[in-house]
């Protein structure tokens, strides 16, 4: 193992500290080769090793009676009954999507889909959580618009061609994402319980097989790129972004699922971040075996690639699998049928080492366990930073103009322009797609039951209080599921934060993780996996702390309970009541952002006990078939939720009169949680159920043929023509592009 001498400069270029380098020397008992240094640098990158977050991630609840597989595999797995399981996870592709929006987002979708079908599950749904900078900013607007368009086309291109419906998600705009958009993609798949596959190598002497696209020079050091801040030079990293081929991925999906059915596959893992390096050493480590590969046998796209390049390439649409010795041909036959290249590149050994040969020469020899599981672990210092308070008293509100202005606000307005570019129906399971109900709902044809999914995060809340913001995100996801009648059962999370080496950022991360842990324990939604994305900073400017939760619920298959009012003359019930809010708790609302143009105070106050009771009541109301429509209150509060309920095909409006003495703008636009708007022909029965659960359920008004009117103690606060509100809501996003 000769070649390039390792200097401190080379170590630093690999983003390894001198201490980390010494640890490598200690593990190997010698200086590493250049290839070995590259291998360590990607496996020990923040992206792959979670070295700053691992210590705190242990605080998350990961067990539950339905959990079949928790964190540590390619995806979490939940038992949904009837002999079937679902596999799901969320992943970020933030850095690549900033550098090259289309391919960055496309390969983000590709990566998470492979994580799902690696487990043996056929992907049936994708949701995405997106954050961009302001679209109308004179300086950064044009670039932000380009990034938005590119990301959406990339997601559409990959998901539509692959044949997985993109059924929901969220999209938020803040100045802090100007130089650092967030692209978090959630995917979910389904399979028989006994068909689950694990990324584990086993059986000394078994062949290691490489399948799919050839290895090229693309994406080298992608994982390390995702573990550093952005600087002016980042654009030069464009070659680090991989290029996706959804058609190849579709073939890979079908071929892998078919090959798994032969019974000749022992273990399988996709090549995602850190490519061949990660898949070999992780499979070896999990199975407590060694893996030896010969790089000459790795299918390559170009001539003259070095071992370093082959091991670190992040070319897309590649899988690594271990087959039963003697049954290789069964596996090869399936891949041949699908026109895919499959090559035996090595064997499983008994020495626990990753041994890499090139032209027969050993170019790397590293113990798997130390490489994959004993990466440095940091307890980074953290220190709380208290955000500013408001600059002055809240100005007098104009309710009549505030509502249409909020409905047109980028965070609140319809995202139709985005989601109509996604095929949200393919596979004909979508009972409720984007913006139809509070959660996306898919039927599972195999079991006759259904699942609901919701993604939620709120960077503004988390900026004001990372812990409370995280609690609120979990509560909101669960509320979305309960509103459509689903019982929340399990969660995944994507933690998007700035540079953890800064104590105030580290504090945000610690607080958010603890908040998620507390809420997930409380709502009995264990975390089954997820992703941490740190160093989301450009030129020293960090993003808001943005934990994004993805929660899954189970429910019967039925026509979905959707948002719009269906008929006039129905009672409008506000399950959970009007709630309370003061100016401090008003500072994180959309009203504060869009109308007062400030951010202050604290996020809305959450009483988790009450939240749980409201959700239980809602699920019972839904199950009894008492609600004609249901919509939870979130961004923009009561008035925005009421307006959204009026935007159905039937054009039904409402007249409400609120018995409250709150200031009108706080009454209408505060974002206190634990509230759901229901229209019903059975207000008495709903009141009985609410009372049983100990929650308020005032009838605040009734539905009418046309228009929306809101009163406070008989005084009209505002009255609107629905066409004007709907046009503000529907046309806003497109008009900004």
């Amino acid at each position: 193992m000769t070649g390039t001498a390792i200097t401190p400069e080379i170590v630093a270029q690999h983003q390894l500290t001198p201490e980390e380098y010494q640890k490598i020397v200690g593990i190997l008992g010698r200086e590493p080769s250049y290839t070995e240094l590259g291998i360590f640098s990607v496996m020990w990158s923040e992206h792959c090793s979670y070295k700053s977050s691992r210590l705190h991630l242990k605080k998350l609840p990961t067990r539950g009676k339905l959990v079949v597989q928790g964190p540590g595999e390619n995806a979490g797995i939940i038992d949904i009954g009837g002999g079937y399981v679902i596999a799901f996870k969320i992943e970020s592709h933030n850095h690549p999507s900033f550098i090259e929006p289309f391919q960055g987002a496309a390969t983000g979708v590709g990566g998470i889909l492979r994580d799902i079908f690696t487990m043996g599950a056929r992907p049936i749904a994708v949701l995405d959580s997106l954050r961009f900078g302001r679209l109308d900013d004179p300086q950064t607007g044009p670039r932000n618009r380009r990034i938005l368009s590119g990301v959406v086309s990339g997601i559409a291109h990959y998901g539509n061609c692959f044949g997985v419906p993109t059924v929901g998600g969220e999209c938020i705009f803040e100045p802090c994402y100007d130089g650092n958009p967030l692209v978090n993609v959630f995917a979910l798949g389904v399979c028989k319980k006994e068909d689950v596959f694990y990324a584990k190598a086993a059986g000394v002497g078994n062949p290691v097989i490489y399948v799919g696209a050839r290895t090229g020079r693309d994406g080298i050091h992608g994982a390390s790129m995702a573990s550093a801040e952005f600087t002016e030079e980042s654009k030069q990293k464009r070659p680090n972004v991989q290029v996706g081929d959804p058609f190849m991925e579709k073939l890979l999906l079908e071929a892998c699922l078919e090959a798994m059915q032969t019974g000749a596959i022992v273990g399988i893992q996709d090549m995602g971040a850190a490519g061949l390096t990660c898949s070999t050493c992780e499979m070896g480590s999990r199975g407590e075996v060694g893996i030896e590969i010969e790089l000459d046998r790795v299918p390559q796209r170009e001539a003259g690639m070095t071992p370093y390049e082959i091991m670190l390439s992040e070319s897309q649409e590649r899988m690594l699998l271990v087959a039963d010795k003697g049954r290789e041909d069964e596996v090869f036959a399936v891949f041949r049928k699908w026109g895919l290249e499959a090559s035996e590149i090595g064997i499983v050994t008994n020495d626990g080492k990753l041994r890499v040969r090139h032209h027969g020469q050993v170019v790397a020899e590293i113990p798997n366990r130390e490489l994959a599981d004993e990466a440095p672990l940091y307890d980074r210092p953290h220190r709380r930073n208290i955000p500013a308070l408001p600059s002055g008293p809240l100005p007098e509100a104009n309710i009549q103009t505030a509502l249409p202005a909020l409905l047109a606000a980028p965070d609140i307005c319809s995202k139709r322009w985005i989601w109509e570019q996604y095929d949200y129906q393919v596979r004909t399971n979508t009972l409720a797609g984007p913006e139809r109900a509070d959660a996306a709902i898919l039927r599972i044809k195999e079991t006759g039951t259904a699942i609901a999914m919701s993604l939620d995060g709120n960077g503004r809340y988390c900026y004001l209080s990372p812990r409370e913001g995280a609690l609120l995100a979990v509560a909101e996801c669960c509320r979305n599921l309960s509103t459509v009648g689903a019982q929340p059962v399990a969660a995944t999370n994507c933690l998007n934060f700035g540079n953890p080496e800064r104590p105030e950022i580290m504090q945000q991360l610690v607080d958010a993780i603890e908040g998620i842990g507390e809420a997930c324990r409380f709502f009995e939604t264990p975390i089954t996996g997820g992703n941490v994305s740190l160093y989301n900073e450009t030129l020293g400017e960090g993003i808001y702390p943005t934990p994004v939760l993805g929660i899954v619920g189970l429910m019967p298959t039925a026509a979905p309970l959707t948002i719009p009012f269906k008929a006039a003359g129905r009672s409008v019930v506000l399950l959970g009541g009007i709630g309370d809010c003061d100016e401090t708790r008003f500072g994180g609302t959309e009203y504060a952002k869009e109308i007062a143009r400030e951010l202050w105070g604290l996020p809305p106050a959450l009483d988790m006990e009450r939240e749980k009771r409201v959700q239980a009541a809602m699920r019972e109301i839904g199950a009894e078939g008492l609600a004609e429509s249901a919509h939870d209150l979130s961004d923009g509060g009561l008035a925005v939720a009421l307006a959204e309920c009026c935007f159905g095909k039937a054009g039904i409006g409402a007249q409400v009169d609120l018995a409250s003495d709150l200031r009108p703008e706080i009454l209408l636009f505060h974002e206190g949680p634990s509230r759901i708007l229901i229209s019903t022909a059975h207000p008495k029965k709903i009141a009985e159920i609410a009372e049983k659960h100990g929650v308020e359920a005032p009838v605040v008004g009734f539905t009418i043929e046309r228009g929306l009117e809101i009163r406070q103690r008989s005084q009209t606060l505002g009255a609107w023509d629905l066409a004007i509100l709907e046009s503000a809501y529907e046309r806003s996003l497109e008009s900004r592009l």
Partner: protein
Amino acid sequence: MKFGVIVFPGSNCDHDAFYAASQNLGQQAEFIWHDSASLGSVDAVILPGGFAYGDYLRCGAIAKFSPVMRAVKQFAAGGGPVLGICNGFQVLVEAGLLPGALIRNRGLKFICRELRLAVGTTNSPFTNAAAPGQVLRVPIAHGEGCFYADERTLDELEAEDRVAFRYIDNLNGSLRDIAGILSRERNVMGMMPHPERASDPLMGSSDGLVVFQSLLRAAVPA
């Protein structure tokens, strides 16, 4: 009645067509792999939606060279009903079984949306169970669904009563609002909207089922 659903590498609405035929219509269905030389004993063939062979080069351009397409052409020549949905329509056009072309949507973007279609003719094995002019709610999901043909071809399609469906909501810019057309012999139909996605009330509309019911009626005369 037995439906054959062609599976090209990259087809992704194959299972949906299979499900509509077998579960929603309650007839037999089987998949036919793209390198099959024969269609076996099927009564009707469906070319499903998706991205056959990745749709590289041009939608449907590679699929027309697929071995199974020879069998499909023979089947069509013998009068067997062939239904192309979305990508299947694009393949039929590329293969010369239907006239015209499908080019990028007017807005240059992929659109997935339920819209209204009017039945253009009931004189076909795909529409005989519909009422003349019946309005159907059926979704589209495509990036290249704008139907294009020269004036003479368009006139001919209309004169020969070969426009099977027209858009009431024309989102992709198709000439003369054409959403689906028939071959001269009326046994081959291509349509961009997805009837198989609107064959179950749970999906929000079952208006598309009439296409499959028509095929059943044509195959098994009452």
